[in-house]
């Protein structure tokens, strides 16, 4: 039998891309946190671990990416944007030290969120930018982790997200667009944060996402009739824990108590057999080159497939050697559950800030 092994060599190449550094911080720190300390030693005995995470250094760098008007940009002195904001807050929560938490200016962050909030409940990705459902997820994620949700911050948001669900059952980027894995995860996770996931047509969504697992490859496609891609191991498979929980809350007695509603072994096979670069790092599909994004999301998907449930109902299905085991990831935030709990505990000791910036209607959005 073939031996399945997972090796990760975290590499550093500066990619000349915008919005990259905070996203890289998140990708790298999340990828490494998925390996427990033991795992890293055993698994990478043949490979050199070039993982140096100086927590203070990262905190200082991310602090420089924070905009004076709130939120985080793609790099120092860049305008705030919801994607690097999401990544930065997640990265800081993974680091989990007081220093890390204190980097975030909560009052300014709230102002930033209000500045990108639209009257119809949606959010633009940055001031003057476009709306799509990722922004709602980014906003809901950072606001809930840092405890800055005011009574009006998410007015109308859940209704707007719901209007993104189309007849296929998945969600599009904006209402009326084709259902798409990434957008579907973002919309659903945002609704879970807002406590409104039951308002989705859950059955149709379930039908759509389960149809996205490819019967030959075992991995997931992003949309109907497209090719498999390793990153959808998280965006698509990650929907199943959310749906499972939603059905459970509705009192569905036919729910499995041992597995998410997708083929967990097949997904692990795809990731381990097809998505690894021999030099370390993970990728979309054979033939593609490795990158931080795919490393992060393939590993996140692997974790989802390995771990079902929590507490009493927790079970593990590890394909290959025990060393392949990753730690569980939180299905909504995609950082380790302990880090989520720790961050929420820390920030809930602080009062919710008062909005000080101008309201959305007062701002010129053109």
């Amino acid at each position, binding site marked *: 039998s073939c031996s399945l092994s997972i090796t990760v060599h975290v590499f550093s190449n500066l990619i*000349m891309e*915008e919005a990259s550094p905070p996203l890289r911080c998140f990708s790298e720190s999340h990828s490494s946190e998925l390996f427990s300390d033991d795992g890293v030693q055993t698994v990478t005995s043949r490979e050199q671990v070039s993982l140096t995470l100086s927590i203070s250094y990262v905190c200082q760098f991310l602090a420089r990416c924070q905009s004076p008007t709130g939120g985080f940009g793609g790099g120092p002195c860049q305008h705030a944007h919801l994607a690097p904001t999401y990544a930065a807050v997640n990265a800081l929560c993974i680091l989990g030290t007081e220093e890390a938490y204190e980097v975030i200016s909560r009052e300014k962050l709230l102002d930033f969120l209000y500045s990108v909030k639209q009257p119809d409940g949606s959010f633009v990705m940055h001031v003057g930018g476009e709306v799509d459902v990722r922004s709602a997820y980014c906003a809901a994620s950072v606001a809930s982790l840092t405890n800055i949700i005011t009574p009006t911050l998410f007015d109308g948001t859940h209704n707007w997200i719901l209007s993104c669900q189309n007849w296929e059952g998945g969600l599009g980027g904006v209402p009326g*667009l084709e259902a798409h894995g990434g957008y579907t995860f973002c919309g659903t996770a945002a609704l879970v944060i807002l406590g409104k996931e039951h308002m989705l047509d859950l059955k149709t969504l379930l039908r759509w996402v389960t149809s996205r697992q490819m019967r030959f490859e075992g991995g997931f496609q992003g949309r*109907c009739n*497209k090719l498999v891609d390793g990153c959808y191991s998280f965006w698509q498979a990650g929907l199943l824990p959310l749906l499972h929980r939603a059905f459970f809350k509705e009192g569905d007695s036919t729910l499995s108590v041992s597995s998410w509603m997708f083929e967990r072994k097949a997904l692990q096979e795809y990731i381990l057999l097809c998505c690894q670069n021999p030099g370390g790092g993970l990728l979309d599909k054979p033939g593609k080159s490795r990158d931080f994004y795919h490393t992060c999301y393939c590993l996140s998907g692997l974790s989802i497939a390995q771990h079902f449930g929590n507490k009493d109902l927790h079970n593990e299905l590890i394909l290959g050697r025990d060393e392949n085991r990753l730690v569980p990831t939180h299905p909504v935030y995609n950082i380790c559950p302990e880090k989520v709990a720790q961050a929420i505990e820390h920030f809930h000791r602080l009062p919710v800030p008062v909005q000080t910036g101008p309201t959305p209607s007062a701002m010129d959005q053109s």
Partner: protein
Amino acid sequence: MAESEEEVDVLVQRVVKDINNAFKRNPNIDEIGLIPCPEVRYNRSPIVLVENKLGVESWCVKFLLPYVHNRLLLYRQRKQWLDREALVDITCTLLLLNPDFTTAWNVRKELLQCGVLNPEKDLYLVKLALSKHPKSPETWIHRRWVLQWLQKECSPSGQELKDQAEPRGDAVGRRPCERLQRALQEEMRVCADAAGRYPSNYNAWSHRIWVLQNMAKGNLKVLHDELSSTRLWVSMHLSDHSGFHYRQHLLKALARELSQVGETELHPSKQPNGESTAGASDDNHHNDVIPQLFHEEMELCTDLIESFPGHETLWCHRRHVFYLWHQWRREHLQGAGSQSPPLTHTDVLLSEEPCDDSSTSQTMDVDCVLDGSKHGSYTQDTKRLKRGPLLPHPALPSEHTFVSRILTDCRSTEQNRFAIAYRKWLDSVIGFHDPYMQRPRHITLIFLAP
């Protein structure tokens, strides 16, 4: 080989100039691309212009890109000044190589806003960038920004202000709707090109939908034209889920617009003497057009499914079209806007195969069905029915017949699987929710056999 900063500087200046000159020499460049050429050649220009194609030799990118990127960032941080012309050239070079660089697009927005840049130039740059990066989200976003900016500028108030500021020249003869028409066609062309360059190009098709919603709102002619012009395209891109989704969007939009048109025709004005005037001479037109559209789409789908077995998208399209049709019929059966419930009822009878124990006759004899509900002379309904046989409208029984036909003839396991899955969907999703659409029992028995 280590490059000195001077060498890189010289190289970059040269490349930026060469690209600029290339555009001056040939304003009809319609495509850019990277020429795989790993060997560094300092004494040769990496810019190659052949006919209307602009090529960049790949060796220079790793020098060019960080350098130009850096210069722009320094400008943005106010650490280094760049004059307007340099900004235009630098952003152009940058964006042709890396169009997801938002800062560069933002610089161009500012240049546009202070009148240094012609918006048409930016639309051209976007089109070129898309020829190499057909998905690039930032590029599509910038295009929409420019189009919105142009719309504001060309709105009546905007136009007036412009006319006052400058002599009108040859703008006198141009009508706004002509310009809009050309702009619309150009957008569709850009979308189609990008869609052809990358399969299931989500961003290209999303942009196309945006164009419909923002540049052609409620325009029935455009919707119809798009339906015709994309027909051939989807027939040649059978797995392009985004292309078919666009047709679904068109159908939905057409059904919505036509129904609204019908609504306004449903309430004819009353004359002072109390009699109501007749509506338009063919005020059931919309009621014909919509079923016709769905029928044609289902026919197209049937044709493609039969000719090209095993494409999941085609089956997905069929589901969606049938679902839309099903929804529209339900709304018009129960909806307040429906002028003719009896018509639809008859329509259902006509399109379904006879039930085993049903007493309803499959009949064109309209009078005995309508008689009780309408008194007086011929209505438009009866006139229409008497014109000739109705097109069979999609319905559960006919769909089941279609599935059986496919299963009998099919040799492809994929096709087999899709057909069975479709049938299951019909039963569990459509049949379950609509008692009107329950298929007759005798057909159930046939399908239970393995």
